[in-house]
């Protein structure tokens, strides 16, 4: 069964990266987050005081660090894809491991941040902003875990020589999902830590 999305037969330049399956997953993920962003806007409009004071309650350094880690990890994923296109299998595997390390670093920082929150009384009761913050970040965290699992799969497949310059759809799909998770965080970061 052919899953790759090919260019139209009339010869229009370029192709859509990845496969149909991963794009269904990505669009579902972004739709899910879009609904959360609408919920955020609704609660911000109906509970403005909570949201005005909310970002100051959070550990901004942890939020910035996690954003930089996600972006850097996404950059490593780009390098992994470029390496496999040059048939540099070891290089691709190493860049994927670096990408995964970024994902694990994100989870570690997030665990530290949640611990810091608890120590400073930032718990999800009685405050719409804090509830929304946990709703957004926990959901995103789950997607990061899924993305890490996809990266582990791609690392193993790369190590066993499953990908080549001509056929690396699985690797490309894993990195696409990772970028989609990055996209969601690009929106969550300012909503939680910046916007008042």
């Amino acid at each position, binding site marked *: 069964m052919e899953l790759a999305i090919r260019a139209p037969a009339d010869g229009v330049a370029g192709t859509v990266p990845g496969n149909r399956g991963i794009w269904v997953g990505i669009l579902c993920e972004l739709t899910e987050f879009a609904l959360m962003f609408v919920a955020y806007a609704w609660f911000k409009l109906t509970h403005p005081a909570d949201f005005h004071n909310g970002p100051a309650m959070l550990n901004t350094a942890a939020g910035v660090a996690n954003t930089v880690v996600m972006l850097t990890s996404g950059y490593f994923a780009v390098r992994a894809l470029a390496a496999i296109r040059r048939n540099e299998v070891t290089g691709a595997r190493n860049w994927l491991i670096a990408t995964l390390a970024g994902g694990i670093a994100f989870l570690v920082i997030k665990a530290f941040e949640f611990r810091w929150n608890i120590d400073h009384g930032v718990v999800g009761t009685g405050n719409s902003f804090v509830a929304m913050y946990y709703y957004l970040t926990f959901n995103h965290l789950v997607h990061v875990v899924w993305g890490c699992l996809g990266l582990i799969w791609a690392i193993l497949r790369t190590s066993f020589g499953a990908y080549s310059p001509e056929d690396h759809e699985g690797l490309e799909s894993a990195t696409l999902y990772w*970028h989609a998770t990055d996209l969601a965080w690009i929106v969550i970061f300012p*909503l939680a830590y910046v916007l008042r």
Partner: protein
Amino acid sequence: MDTQERRATWVWLGLVGLTLGSAWLGEGQFSIGLTAVMVALIVGVKGLLVIRHFMGLTEKGSRLRLLMRLYFVVVPVLILLAGSAGLVMGA
């Protein structure tokens, strides 16, 4: 490192710079309304950069690319809408 990777490197540095800029805005440098506008613009730019240079959605006329890019037009508008609530508090 080929041309595409060099470009991706510059994009990554730009994304990190925009992130640090966002954090700076969060320190209350400007009015709430102006901050919301700048945050919305930064989110839009960052999203479009990732879609173009990291995800590789470059095919002209692609409905998928249009849909993804539209996402990073609609969401910043939503941020502006949400930011208007802050104007009430910040007045």
